[in-house]
């Protein structure tokens, strides 16, 4: 999961949890606030009543010693003063039911004993609980709505900000990690950001890439220079041997030995030429301007290779289920790729074995499969078959120097062809080439 997505998730979830918690707590909170508020109102009323009595005497409320009771028309508030026979010292507030005229109403009631003229009185002030609760609902709704809007606003703000602040990271990932094609990394573009961490990350990646790039560059230059430099001495030796071969006073016996020398020189020449070819491919020195049908390319390879098939009496089957045209490719290189794979299939095949070559469309991709009935590759060796100069045990008896598959790999990478290899020891190998969509016409 991406960092941005994770942050967004965390943000939203944490806020939602807090809001839910708050909304759940809201009724009891509001109830509490309401009670405190009601209680303080009750106390104020009591103080007012007691003040009035102090100033005007108890008679202000109670004429002839009759009890006093007063309430508003909707009976949400009532006040009663009565003689108290019990000699208590009440001063508390609690919820009780009172019957006012025909209505039974739940009240929050303040009860207070006071003495005037050596007589005990009981003052009760009630506020209807319905009135109290009436306010709770709307309050809760408003609080919830306001919160919701605020949460949405903060999530949006968070989103925008994390978008903004993480943009450099996205850029680094897109252009420096995913976008850069190994080993050609392209040019360096500094990341625009004020976040130190990203700057550090960018610079560190850049430095690592530079190190890798320069190591690659050096290796390529070395191979290219070394093989170029070897060409001239090989050339001189080859010419010298050929000229000696032509001389009339050289005995046949000596000529055979010259030929041995030439054969060894040939081996050196092949290795050098192959290394040079690989370095040229890796340095992008080949044009990709050819268009060719896979069927005709396979035919050309067959024309070159049929003598080898015949020599080993191999049954060669070509099955073009779906013919396709390769565009913007290098025909010379693709020819060599197929030649090497099929040549390997012959070399490592058994006498009178079978090779089947198939061109087919699998799902959306065009593939060429080369299946042989050869000696196969053990699973221990499989990861190393594309390494230069890696000669596997079973291939030692063959005339090869371990550069066939490295060429195949270089050419495949140059054309964005994916190679999949499956092999069973002593049963055979399958090399599958998956062509990139961009090279299909």
């Amino acid at each position, binding site marked *: 999961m991406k960092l941005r997505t994770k942050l967004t998730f965390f943000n939203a979830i944490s806020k939602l949890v807090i809001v839910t918690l708050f909304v759940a707590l809201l009724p009891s909170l509001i109830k509490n606030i309401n009670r405190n508020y009601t209680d303080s109102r009750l106390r104020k009323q009591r103080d007012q009543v007691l003040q009035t009595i102090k100033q005007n005497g108890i008679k202000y409320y109670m004429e002839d010693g009759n009890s006093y009771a007063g309430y508003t028309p909707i009976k949400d508030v009532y006040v009663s003063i009565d003689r108290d026979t019990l000699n208590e010292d009440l001063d508390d507030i609690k919820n009780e039911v009172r019957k006012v005229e025909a209505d039974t109403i739940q009240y929050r009631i303040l009860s207070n004993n006071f003495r005037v003229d050596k007589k005990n009185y009981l003052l009760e002030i009630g506020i209807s609980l319905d009135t109290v609760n009436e306010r709770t609902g709307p309050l809760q709704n408003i609080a919830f709505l306001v919160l919701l809007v605020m949460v949405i606003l903060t999530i949006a703000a968070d989103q925008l900000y994390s978008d903004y602040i993480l943009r450099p990271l996205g850029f680094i990932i897109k252009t420096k990690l995913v976008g850069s094609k190994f080993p050609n990394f392209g040019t360096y573009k500094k990341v625009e950001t004020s976040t130190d961490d990203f700057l550090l990350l960018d610079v560190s990646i850049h430095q690592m890439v530079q190190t890798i790039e320069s190591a690659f560059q050096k290796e390529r230059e070395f191979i290219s220079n070394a093989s170029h430099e070897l060409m001239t001495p090989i050339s001189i030796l080859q010419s010298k041997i050929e000229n000696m071969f032509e001389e009339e006073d050289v005995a046949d016996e000596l000529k055979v030995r010259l030929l041995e020398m030439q054969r060894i020189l040939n081996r050196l020449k092949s290795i050098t030429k192959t290394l040079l070819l690989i370095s040229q491919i890796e340095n992008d020195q080949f044009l990709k301007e050819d268009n060719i049908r896979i069927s005709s390319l396979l035919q050309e390879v067959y024309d070159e290779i*049929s003598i080898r098939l015949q020599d080993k009496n191999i049954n060669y089957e070509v099955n073009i289920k779906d013919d396709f045209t390769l565009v913007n490719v290098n025909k010379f290189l693709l020819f060599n790729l197929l030649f090497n794979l099929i040549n390997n299939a012959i070399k490592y095949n058994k006498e009178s074995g079978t090779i089947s070559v198939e061109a087919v469309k699998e799902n959306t991709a065009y593939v060429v499969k080369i299946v042989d009935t050869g000696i196969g590759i053990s699973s221990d060796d499989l990861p190393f078959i594309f390494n230069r100069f890696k000669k596997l045990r079973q291939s030692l008896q063959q005339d090869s120097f371990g550069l066939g598959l490295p060429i195949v790999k270089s050419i495949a990478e140059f054309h964005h062809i994916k190679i999949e290899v499956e092999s069973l020891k002593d049963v055979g190998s399958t090399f599958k080439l998956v062509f990139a969509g961009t090279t299909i016409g």
Partner: protein
Amino acid sequence: MNVLIIEDEKALARELEIFLSNSNYICEVCYDGSSASEKVGVNLYDFILIDLGLPDYDGLDLLKEAKKSNPDAAYVILTARAEINDRIKGLDMGADDYLAKPFSLLELQSRMQAITRRKFGLKNNVIVLGEFSVNLTDRLITHSAAEVSAITKKEFDLIAYLILHKNRTVTRNQLSEHIWGSIINDDYDSNYIDAHIKNIRKKLTAFAPVEWLETVRGLGYKIKINT
């Protein structure tokens, strides 16, 4: 025919000179661009072999310069710089052929002969081998007016190459360099030349004996033509 060899690697220039002199070319050798530039200004050559990697001169510049004073000469570029761009540039500038080092001397000779044939339009390209006649232009082998159609392209290439270097032993290496030279692969000791020759013999002896195609034991093959 006069050949100017422009090659800074003296040992190689010397071998080229020996080989081409033995093949009856008249050779002159230059080891650097400036002396070559003087020579092409004064003399006329049939062939100019230019090494692109000269110490004092860009080989392609020299080619351009030489074309002015020697427009009729045939130019063959020799180089260890096997970059394709050079190749395209060289051929665009009017080089007739291109050989990447290291090359076989026989290959150089056959390229030069091909250029000569092209330039002078040699018509007599039918060679008689025993009861067969080989038409190098139409790439046909006939036996008493009937075409021997079983011969493949590769097999014909082999026969043509041996005819070109007639009466001379051509080694398997030289043959395989000519036949498979452009293919880059992992084999350094392929003996498929023998298989090809075996096929050629089998296909041709169905019509007539092929004693003109000789195996030189341990060395290679030879086509004998009595001149």
